[in-house]
């Protein structure tokens, strides 16, 4: 409003040049939005391109985060403080064994809260005495200490665990896979298995335990019963320990030497939760592939936005001309089209975040996982669309601004 109807009473030969007004941010947004509102179908379709790209990336990140969250929760429930000790190989390559008193020695390490063990016996288990000897079903028979259940965190689904009485008698507890292979569904006094050349009674069935998968296909008998009935030598083959959380690594370091002070190199110490995590982490390459696909879709979406904007500029020459006639500078026109492009891809971005969240929720719910979409992924997705909108809109905006008003109005 520098030039009034009567620009000064003095007849100055050269009045100061008029200065264009700055456009308000709200007006920029309003003008950009009005441009989009006029072409809803096209806006929807080009925003969809961006949305698909963002949704794909959000879903990949969300699904993998949900899976990890699920694993973390499972590990939390199972505990990451479980360490196992098993005999490795001797220097000569022969199978080593742990000393019979390994459990007692390990139990004396300060931070160790619990220690228990199983020991493999040479016996085999069959559904009945009529089954040919070769058809052992891959089920191992182990001697188990009574405190195994608490140490490992295993759960009995049917029947009971061994107790002070039954562990001296021919009683057996089956892992879930072993029970399935033997065709045992319910334990009971009349359910007998042919184990080590005599009948054993099934007293319980365990639930699957991801931290000790070796128990799933095991038939567990009491330690004294194994020694007496099955000729078990009393050497543990896997020692399980629970440790104070803060001391897990320290204990892991000394566990080998403690279990077998004479031959510490013949001992294998492992942390099952690490193995489990590593196993789940192998999906990362697939995630990378999907992220790449999402990025490609996003790029294609960006090209779609640029295309829409270029067409829009071509179609709206008259509007551009009119705006120049109303006093818009090239800068005003540039900002208008840039705002439009930004809004367009932002629309796609926000839509994509919601689509991605929906996909993540659907998949996670289907898998029984908790739904986790990291906030950084959502913020990143929206930020990425803003960058795409700016890049895609730059050329059309510059083109629109360069259009001469007379040409635009012709």
């Amino acid at each position, binding site marked *: *409003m*520098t*030039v*009034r*109807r*009567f*620009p*000064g009473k003095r007849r*100055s030969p*050269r*009045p100061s*040049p*008029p*200065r*264009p*007004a*700055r*456009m*308000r941010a*709200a*007006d920029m947004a*309003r*003008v950009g939005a*009005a441009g989009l*509102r*006029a072409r809803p179908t096209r806006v929807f379709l080009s925003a969809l391109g961006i949305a698909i790209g963002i949704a794909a990336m959000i879903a990949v990140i969300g699904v993998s985060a949900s899976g990890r969250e699920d694993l973390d929760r499972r590990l939390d429930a199972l505990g990451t403080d479980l360490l196992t000790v098993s005999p490795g190989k001797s220097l000569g390559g022969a199978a080593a064994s742990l000393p019979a008193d390994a459990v007692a020695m390990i139990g004396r390490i300060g931070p160790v809260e619990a220690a228990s063990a199983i020991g493999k016996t040479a016996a085999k288990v069959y559904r009945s005495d009529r089954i040919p000897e070769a058809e052992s079903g891959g089920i191992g028979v182990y001697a188990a200490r009574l405190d195994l259940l608490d140490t490992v965190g295993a759960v009995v689904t049917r029947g009971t665990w061994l107790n002070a009485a039954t562990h001296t008698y021919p009683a057996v507890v089956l892992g879930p896979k072993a029970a399935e292979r033997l065709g045992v569904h319910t334990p009971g006094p009349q359910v007998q298995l042919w184990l080590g050349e005599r009948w054993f009674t099934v007293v319980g069935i365990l639930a699957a335990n991801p931290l000790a998968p070796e128990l799933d296909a095991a038939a567990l008998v009491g330690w004294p019963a194994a020694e007496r009935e099955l000729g078990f030598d009393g050497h543990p083959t896997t020692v399980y320990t629970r440790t104070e959380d803060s001391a897990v690594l320290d204990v892991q370091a000394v566990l080998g030497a403690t279990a077998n002070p004479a031959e510490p190199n013949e001992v294998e110490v492992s942390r099952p939760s690490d193995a489990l995590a590593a196993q789940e982490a192998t999906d990362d390459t697939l995630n990378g592939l999907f992220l790449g696909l999402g990025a490609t879709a996003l790029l294609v979406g960006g090209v779609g936005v640029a295309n829409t904007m270029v067409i829009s500029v071509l179609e709206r*020459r*008259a*509007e551009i*001309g*009119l*705006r*120049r*006639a*109303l*006093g*818009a*500078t*090239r*800068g*005003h026109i540039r900002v208008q089209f840039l705002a439009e492009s930004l809004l367009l891809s932002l629309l796609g971005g926000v839509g994509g975040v919601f689509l991605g969240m929906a996909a993540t929720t659907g998949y996670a719910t289907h898998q029984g996982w908790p739904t986790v979409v990291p906030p950084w992924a959502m913020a990143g997705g929206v930020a990425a669309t803003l960058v795409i909108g700016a890049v895609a809109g730059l050329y059309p905006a510059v083109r629109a601004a360069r259009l*001469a*008003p*007379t040409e635009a*109005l*012709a």
Partner: protein
Amino acid sequence: MTARPLVELVGVAKEYGGVLALRDAHLTVRVGELAAVVGPSGSGKSTLLTIMGTLSRPTSGTVRVAGHDLDDLRDRELAALRAATIGFVFQQFHLGPGPVLDAVADGLLYQGTPRRRRRALAEQVLHRLGLGHRLGHDTHQLSGGEKQRVAIARAVLGDPPLLLADEPTGALDSRAGAVVMEALYELHRAGTAVIVITHNPDIAASLPREVRLRDGRIEYDSACAAPVPAVAQEAPARPDTPVTDPEHHRSNGQFVRPDAIGPRHPGRREEDS
């Protein structure tokens, strides 16, 4: 009529790709004037309008608008000058979709006026132009005449001293055209200088001043042709700009040349846009 000059063209020529669309134009529009620029299609009317409206710069010659020499202004300053000084009305209205009130309020979009104020002014102007009952309607619900009056409202929202109307009645029937012309008269009476570009000699003859164009030359200007034609300072008579006898323009057939009869004649803008 000694009002200050608003637009001054001195020896202006405009060339488009080797074709001289306008040559040696001398023209002064003063504050508060009402004038017609008339001529057949292709005579340079629109070129003259874009130069007066600072939408394009002349190839040669000097243009002064509101005291500013266009040569001294950069493109953005020109835009600011346009925003504050000149309102435009086009044959095709150029109204976007949306409510009438917002379409008119856009007239001050580029002057940094807050939206609330723009809308308040728009309401005032619409009432003044007899469109008070159409405020909330969508632009596409209006008749042609109403659309053009909305476009006029948008053009004069900031109360510019000059209104350039390019064939304002070209797309309207005679009754709607008359209403639009009445709106322009009304603005003129309120003090706005109004230039109406038309190929209709009747409209041209009905306005106080008439500038006639032919083949890119100002053939006749009633302001200069008055008592002593040759005296006019702004438009010295030259061999290549014959100032014709006022009698001549009465015969209507004179304006229609063979090359002007064709599909490009009345609906020219429609075709090109």
